[in-house]
């Protein structure tokens, strides 16, 4: 009996311990932001379709932060060649890269993404400003006596008498989402800095300022609807008095059912986002590991395809997917730099 026990134990150990040597990779390996994912995959597919001998690159949707972590982990076939990002690389991430031997990185800015606040077409179009959004969604708001109180507003007309007499009900992304980060940074901070007493706080107590500006209320007025923006669109159609926060591409695909609210008087449209008039928009990027250029020449094809006007131009196929193109001159300059793989400088913050 003892013997058979040993046999079983040895078999178990042997079967779980077999190891496979690291295998060569014949496809590009791209990671990063879920916002850039649709654009990155469209380019990857176009590349796989048009160029013979290039397999369609693999694109993993890991989120911007997760992508940076994988990208900066080192050089070699097990590490990604390109990472997508819905914000610029941070100085700390750049340093991690440097420390792990990822020395030369090419930064490519690919376009803009607007964050829209939309509602169902069956009710009227909203006209909001950033201050309204801040007061309606912040966790703590000024109490008028120099201090702060938990957000007391239940209805929109308590925030701003011009707004309708409706319950505050906003469906938005959870904290893990890059869209949420960008919304907090662009809309909430913008709105909170429009209140002079909070703006003054920045100089005296930066930590408090950050907490006040970036905290989103958790009492049910802001509903975390999950990472799935399609779900938010469906819920908006079912509930005409609610507002939803998501990326512009979802508005673009559903213009027959939902409408984007004006923010600071500007409607979210392709033109207003590309000129920067619409206040809640951010730049999208991807980063290339120059050290991989030699072993993966397909990187050059990918960058060339991405930076060609038929892809990222105002009439390109990425515009169909909801990417908002950069101005012509900027696009040209970036394309030139990207195709030469000019390494970026260390970011300032």
């Amino acid at each position, binding site marked *: 009996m003892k013997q058979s026990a040993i046999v079983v134990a040895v078999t*178990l150990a042997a079967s779980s311990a077999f190891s496979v040597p690291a*295998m060569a990779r014949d496809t590009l390996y791209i990671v990063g932001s879920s916002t850039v994912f649709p654009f990155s995959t469209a380019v990857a597919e176009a590349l796989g379709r048009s160029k013979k001998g290039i397999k369609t690159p693999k694109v993993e949707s890991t989120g911007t932060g997760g992508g940076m972590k994988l990208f900066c982990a080192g050089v070699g076939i097990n590490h990604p060649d390109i990472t997508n990002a819905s914000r610029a690389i941070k100085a700390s991430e750049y340093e991690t890269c440097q420390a792990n031997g990822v020395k030369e990185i090419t930064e490519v800015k690919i376009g803009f993404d607007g964050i829209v606040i939309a509602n169902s077409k069956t009710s009227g179009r909203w006209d909001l400003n950033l201050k309204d959004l801040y007061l309606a969604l912040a966790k703590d708001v000024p109490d008028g006596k120099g201090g702060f109180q938990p957000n007391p507003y239940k209805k929109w007309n308590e925030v701003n008498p011009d707004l309708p007499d409706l319950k505050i009900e906003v469906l938005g992304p959870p904290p893990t989402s890059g869209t949420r980060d960008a919304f907090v940074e662009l809309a909430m901070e913008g709105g909170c800095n429009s209140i002079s007493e909070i703006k003054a706080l920045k100089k005296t107590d930066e930590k408090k300022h950050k907490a006040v500006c970036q905290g989103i209320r958790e009492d049910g007025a802001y509903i975390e609807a999950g990472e799935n923006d399609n779900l938010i669109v469906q819920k908006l159609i079912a509930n005409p008095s609610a507002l939803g926060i998501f990326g512009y591409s979802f508005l673009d695909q559903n213009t027959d059912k939902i409408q984007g609210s004006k923010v600071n008087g500007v409607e979210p449209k392709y033109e207003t986002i590309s000129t920067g008039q619409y206040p809640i928009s951010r730049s999208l990027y991807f980063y290339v590991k120059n050290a991989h250029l030699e072993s993966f020449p397909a990187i050059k094809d990918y960058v060339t395809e991405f930076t060609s006007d038929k892809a990222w131009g105002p009439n390109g196929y990425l515009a169909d997917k909801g990417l908002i193109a950069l101005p012509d001159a900027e696009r040209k300059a970036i394309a030139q730099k990207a195709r030469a793989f000019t390494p970026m400088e260390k970011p300032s913050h």
Partner: protein
Amino acid sequence: MNKPAPQITPTGRPNPVDIVRASLKRRYARERRFRWLGATAVLIGLLCVVLLFADIILKGYTAFQQTYIRLPIALEAESIDPEGTGARAAIEDADYLALIRNALFELFPEVRDRQERRLLTSIVSVGAPNLVREYVLAHPDRIGTTQEIWVPATADIDMLMKGHINRDLPEAERRVKDQTLGWIDRLAAEGRIAKRFNTPFFVNGTSREPELAGIAGALMGSFYTLLLTLILSFPIGVGAAIYLEEFAPRNRWTDLIEININNLAAVPSIVFGLLGLAVFIGFFGMPRSTPLVGALVLTLMTLPTIIIASRAALKSVPPSIREAALGVGASSLQTQFHHVLPLAMPGMLTGTIIGMAQALGETAPLLMIGMIAFIVDIPQGFTDMATVLPVQIYLWADSPERGFVERTSAAIMVLLAFLFAMNLAAVLLRRRFERRW
């Protein structure tokens, strides 16, 4: 009905029969209430399932059809095979998009403006040139003739034909503009547009274009992952169960192991993904995003299920079988493998199939090992990059294009069909082979 007053027996205590009779009505009522509650619970459950299925099927059934446009494509010899060699390479390299565009411009000669021509070309899917290429490769003898070929329409046109785009809305709010509508109506009047069975959905890998996206890649990924999971987890699980149940001494160590196995069965699956990332990818250096790593992680996840089910199956074999075998001189190992194991097998297989069904529907642990990815090529083996069905569903559900809504539901239907088949197999196996004593 008058309740008879409890009769006082000579001893002074109430008659027990009377007490029972008095409470009878109340107890019956209680039973009825319980039955009624149970029936309601089952009914609510069934209703939810019916609603879920109805929603998925209503949303998804249209995905099994796809809009095609019939174009008279002139397969000119000078543009496909200018040297007339008939070489495969030359035919593969030809510009089929140009042929399709020419066919469209022939049909709509009044469209001359460059912008308008671009718009006209965009009603045909970007995958159409590939289809025409395949056609020519299959029929090289037809070069030089004009053939009526059905090519897939773009997803927006598909949505329009399936009624998901409302024509009555103002033009600015529609993704399909008035001019395109006019073209489509003319094509429809000429019988050049039709919905046909959506073969690409079953033979293609995924795509960014809904009309080209298919589940074959994810299905093959699921197949390889599950096959390897089965190969690994069944022998290990059954072996562990036999050892623990039949051979292991009862002491503190085996108690500890038993508690741990039961605990592992309740560990959230994403934890196994983290473990897989650290051990299989980080330490052993296995390739990311492959069925190999996926299967190892899912093996860890399903092992407790299989071990627990197998032990229960072994326990249900009556000791008399073992004693009889030992009595006629069989060794312990012979007793187990010749007598106990065959009798316990149906129960073990049921447990394994349920474990496999669980593994088939799992996404969370695969997130950590890179299987949530856009992979177009259909995997050919255990070390090719792959994704699995539930991951494909998740990725499609998250896509902004409207064409993916129906495809998501269709993919869910395929996944459900497989789950049903597996659970049915488990039930049938039990019916067919189970023995009762």
